[in-house]
């Protein structure tokens, strides 16, 4: 199948994420990703699937510049980040929201402080931070928990905090690595709905998961990885 020229009608034209012949090798002679080429358009919602060790996490790490590709190019918003200097990484991260299986919240700070930190790094004035954090927490249904510390929250609540933090600065791209891996099915739907909503508002969302039931339910585009290669690119299908 051909990538690169498959823009669906009605979608904005230039892709926001372009991965071009990217490979990643942690250890000489082995490839976590091998000659991967793909494109994701603005506002798209994409599932990234594949068995454990397929390279899902590695691909996401390349996208938020936690790792550099051994070969190939990663172009975000028209800018090549394959050889980004360490000093330029923070600025890139401020435009990308990231959500992890283990939430990665600051235990020493309250729920609202955890969400606010994404705006603090941008230098947003305190009054605006307060307002935006409050409305964000309201969207994820946690406004009543805003002065709590993460450890006093349930797993689902903690993940909602981390999604609120990822979305509060209105990033163009939201990456999620197994965001529901620790949650039971009911909470899983709740979290996925939040991510799907973000994409409806124009954020490009990429979710790594091995929960195939989830993919069926949402009917979104699916990039299937296996052994570090792109095995399949299944376009979104409409519900019948």
């Amino acid at each position, binding site marked *: 199948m051909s990538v690169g020229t498959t823009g669906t009608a009605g979608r904005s034209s230039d892709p926001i994420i372009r991965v071009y012949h990217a490979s990643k090798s942690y250890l000489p002679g082995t490839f976590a990703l091998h000659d991967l080429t793909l494109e994701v358009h603005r506002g798209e919602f994409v599932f990234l699937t594949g068995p454990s060790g397929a390279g899902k996490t590695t691909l996401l790490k390349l996208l938020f510049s936690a790792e550099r590709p051994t070969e190939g190019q990663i172009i975000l918003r028209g800018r090549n980040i394959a050889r980004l200097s360490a000093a330029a990484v*923070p600025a*890139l*991260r401020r435009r990308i929201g*990231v959500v992890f299986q283990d939430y*990665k919240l*600051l*235990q*020493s700070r309250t729920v609202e*402080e955890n969400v606010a930190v994404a705006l603090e790094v941008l*230098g947003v004035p305190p009054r605006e931070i307060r307002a935006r954090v409050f409305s964000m927490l309201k969207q994820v249904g946690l406004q009543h928990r805003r002065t709590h510390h993460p450890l006093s929250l349930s797993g689902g609540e903690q993940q909602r905090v981390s999604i609120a933090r990822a979305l509060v600065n209105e990033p163009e791209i939201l990456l999620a690595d197994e965001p529901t891996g620790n949650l039971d099915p009911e909470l899983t739907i709740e979290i996925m709905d939040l991510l799907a909503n973000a994409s409806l508002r124009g954020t490009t969302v990429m979710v790594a998961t091995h929960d195939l039931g989830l993919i069926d339910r949402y009917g979104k585009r699916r990039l299937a990885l296996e052994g570090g290669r792109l095995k399949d690119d299944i376009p979104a299908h409409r519900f019948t």
Partner: protein
Amino acid sequence: MRIGDQFTIHRAQYFLRSAVAGLRASPVTSLVAVVTIAMALLLIGVFLLLLENMDQVLDRFGESLVVTVYLENNVAEEDVQAFQSRFSSIEGVVGTVFVSKEEALDRFRHRVGDQGGLLDGLDENPLPPSFELSLEKERSSIESLALVAQSIDGIPGVDEVSYAQEWVSGYENFLSLARVIGAALGGVLAFAALLIVANTIQLTIYARRDELDILALVGASRTFAGVPFLLEGLLQGCAGGVSAVALLYVLYELLLPYTAAGWSFLLGNVPPQFLSDAGTLLIVAVGAGLGLLGSAVALTTAKRP
């Protein structure tokens, strides 16, 4: 310009809030760091207290130090004038007091009291006339006294120049020795404290290392993520310094009845005093410096993504 200032203030507030949150999140480790700093500074404080008091004795003594120039017995009235202007032109000399033979005798009588009759048998006053030269305050050390004395010794008409008793110079030697030992001990202590503090703070940072990673994920620069940790160290250091001074004060006051003999051995009849403001500030500043440096060391040695 105003926007920039606002921004700076907001940043500072954020850093301070984060630092306080960090301290509250690990109260036990923070307390250990504060106590460690306080103990090291308490020892340094004891040395400083001793040195300041001994310095003060010398200062007081220094104020009353004069170079006494004994003139030959038969010096003429007009020569006294000449000597006076000559002595007062010596660098560092601020006061010249002429003590005539008669005044010298009066002083002697006054000092020996009733036994004044001792000299009555003599038909001539045996005491020589003299000049007492006082020096600028900054120069009232043994060295400058000696220098002034040297420049006068040998002038025709001058019989003898004397300054300071032996023990003053001995005390000053002792003091400079104590100062060197104190500085060396203080330095070793401060260094040991630095290592312990750095280690303790490194533990707090290690325990919260993931926080640095998390902050990096949301786009915090190294500085942005690191400043709250530095501030935590600074606050711990200040708290340690203030506790050390407070503890020293309590000990000093409580133990005063038991240490009186020791003090009078060191200071004679000069009453002991607690640390000066400058000394207090120094202790707190050293604490702040230790805390800051400790967390800086911990930050640079903690591996970062």
